[in-house]
């Protein structure tokens, strides 16, 4: 699967031999993409971050081969490329799973339950932070604040949002992923593999039909203020959507949460339905 073995962390021994090149057909294909990326920028070096995403889309991590590829195209030394590749946390330095499950454990999510979710998943999957399950399916890691605090606790899978999670919903989420069931995020498109996600990050739009519109517009928490401003009664946040809104159902602001509705619990806090949206969808 990969052109080079994973790097060891730090080696003080003999210098490594130069990385092998990509096979000719792979290289030709990647070069075509790379030239398109480079053409976007007034200065070719600006293409380095997208190019590193592109190499991840090929191998699932940034290999020495990938870095040498970037260096060659941009006229940089491999040291210059390595310095950049090791600075950013989204570049994997060794192969990982098809699905990267990131649990936010920055303060707010951690307090709201992210720590409990992360502990549960570590135990359930039998892996630690940054480790991959034996079947190569899932890499688990804790992540920093992902700008979704009003949906806390948040889990990201391949950088799609799974909002308002609980330990139970997160467990079902990873079980569904490992069992090959279709898993849809709360906000975002149906999951594709880590490699395919990396290609979007390299700047190639997601061409899958329905990917852009998947899960509809703003999430429920994003609409709380708007609904109040429109004169709707203050209520608890509606439970997170259990999938995409039905396509034929109009969603002009006033359809939910009239003052006649009984207060609704969030799914994350509903004892009868402890699973969050992800697990429900996956069934």
């Amino acid at each position, binding site marked *: 699967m990969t052109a080079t073995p994973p790097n060891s962390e730090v080696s003080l021994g003999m210098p490594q031999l130069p990385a092998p090149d990509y096979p000719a057909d792979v290289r030709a294909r990647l070069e075509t993409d790379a030239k398109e990326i480079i053409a*976007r920028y*007034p*200065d070719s070096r600006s293409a*380095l*971050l997208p190019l590193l*995403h592109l190499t991840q889309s090929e191998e699932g991590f940034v290999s020495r081969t990938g870095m040498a590829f970037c260096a060659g195209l*941009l006229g940089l030394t491999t040291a210059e490329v390595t310095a*950049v590749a090791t*600075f950013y*946390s*989204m570049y994997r330095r060794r192969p990982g799973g098809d699905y990267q499950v990131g649990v936010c*454990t*920055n*303060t*707010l999510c*951690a*307090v*709201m339950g992210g720590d*409990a979710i992360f502990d549960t998943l570590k135990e359930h999957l039998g892996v630690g932070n940054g480790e991959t399950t034996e079947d190569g399916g899932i890499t688990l890691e804790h992540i*920093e*604040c992902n*700008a979704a*605090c*009003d*949906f*806390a*606790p948040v889990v*990201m899978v391949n*950088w799609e*949002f799974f909002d308002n999670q609980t330990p139970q919903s997160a467990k079902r989420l990873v079980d569904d992923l490992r069992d090959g069931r279709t898993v849809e995020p709360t906000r975002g*498109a149906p999951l594709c593999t880590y490699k395919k*996600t990396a290609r*979007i*990050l390299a*700047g190639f*739009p997601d061409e899958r039909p329905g990917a*852009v519109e998947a*899960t509809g517009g*703003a*999430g*429920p*928490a*994003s*609409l*709380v203020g*708007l609904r*109040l*401003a*429109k*004169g709707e009664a*203050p*209520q*608890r*946040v509606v439970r997170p959507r259990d999938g995409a809104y039905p396509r034929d159902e109009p*969603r*002009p*602001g006033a359809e939910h949460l009239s003052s006649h509705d009984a207060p609704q*619990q969030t799914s994350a*806090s509903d*004892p009868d339905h402890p699973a969050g949206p992800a697990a429900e969808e996956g069934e």
Partner: protein
Amino acid sequence: MTTMATQLGENGTSPEKLLAPVLSAFWDQPESWTLATYERHDGYQGLRKALAMAPDDLIAYVKDAGLRGRGGAGFPTGMKWQFIPQGDGKPHYLVVNADESEPGTCKDIPLLFANPHALIEGIVIACYAIRSQQAFIYLRGEVVPVLRRLHEAVREAYAAGYLGTNILGSGLDLDVVVHAGAGAYICGEETALLDSLEGRRGQPRLRPPFPAVAGLYACPTVVNNVESIASVPSILNRGKDWFKSMGSEKSPGFTLYSLSGHVTSPGQYEAPLGITLRQLLDMSGGIRAGHRLKFWTPGGSSTPMFTEEHLDVPLDYEGVGAAGSMLGTKALQCFDETTCVVRAVTRWTEFYAHESCGKCTPCREGTYWLVQLLRDIEAGKGRMSDIDKLNDIADTINGKSFCALGDGAASPIFSSLKHFRAEYEEHVTGKGCPLDPAKSTAWADQNPHPEVNA
């Protein structure tokens, strides 16, 4: 929490009066992210008005409106534009900072997910003003759903003639590139962002020269936050007087407040600047039932924390500043009495230590040692002298690094020691944390076992 009538006017407590959805006004409409929906809601009307003005007049107009940067520092947007030297023969660049990563901050990501065209329109207006033909949107990489919608919005804008050559017949040519970052909080700092966009490690630059003189590729560059740029079209379309009718003289206009944590209704609340947390909580159901507010941040983890006594602080640049903090990103993270402040600060400090780029010694080393001390205190292995040492180290970091990350790391230390020193001491004398983290979770009070219900 206790909610009481405040010194509001007779009709001042209703959400309809207190909130002012502008950017979020049609987020509940079907396919709100599309060009068609945006155009149905006055989309690209502001651009038409802007293109009818001379660029310098446009800059003056935005300056007169008083729009201030929504990314944290509050620098006047129009003034940033004015600093771009004209007739210098160099390319000019607009770089939109969409690297939203400050802990607690969650406004630009939902804005771009639901209404990306407000940003695109703002970009065209800004580029016309500063005479730029190339803009970049630097989006943090970890938000692929937003990246998808930005790709699509840019595609739609090109197809409709809002981007590309001779935009709306004005002679303006403009290209926009959506650039995904790769995971580094520091790239939200504008000069680190520029280094990152140039394909380097994201490390802040020494200023001067400022980006307005030597920014991207050493050319004059404006770096603006997403919300700042997205606010521009409505100012043009509805007028600066409309904009100034909201907020205060020095902090005019509307903005997105992001309520999160132990509140009944976390979410986005768009309101005139100067609303208070008490007003926001009063209208939205308050702190979660049966609990009291303990501490909160006005604008992300880098802004000194507040307590219950600050509920009536007007949330504008001056009001929050006068109360000893910063408006920052208006990320109102609320924590109730179940939350251990030492745990919260430890976690934030771990974040700063992880995200310190390593360039400046006080920040790189200081955040490392803060984490060691805090972990010890949290685990009940700390000494009383460690508490003073925290303060000393924070003092060594604060103001002694290139960028504000160091200052941000010091903020939670200083402010938590100011308000909750006793709780730190309790961890030392009691050899551990007196609070149960299980009680803080979102599901704590819905536990199926009734005996542990609050």
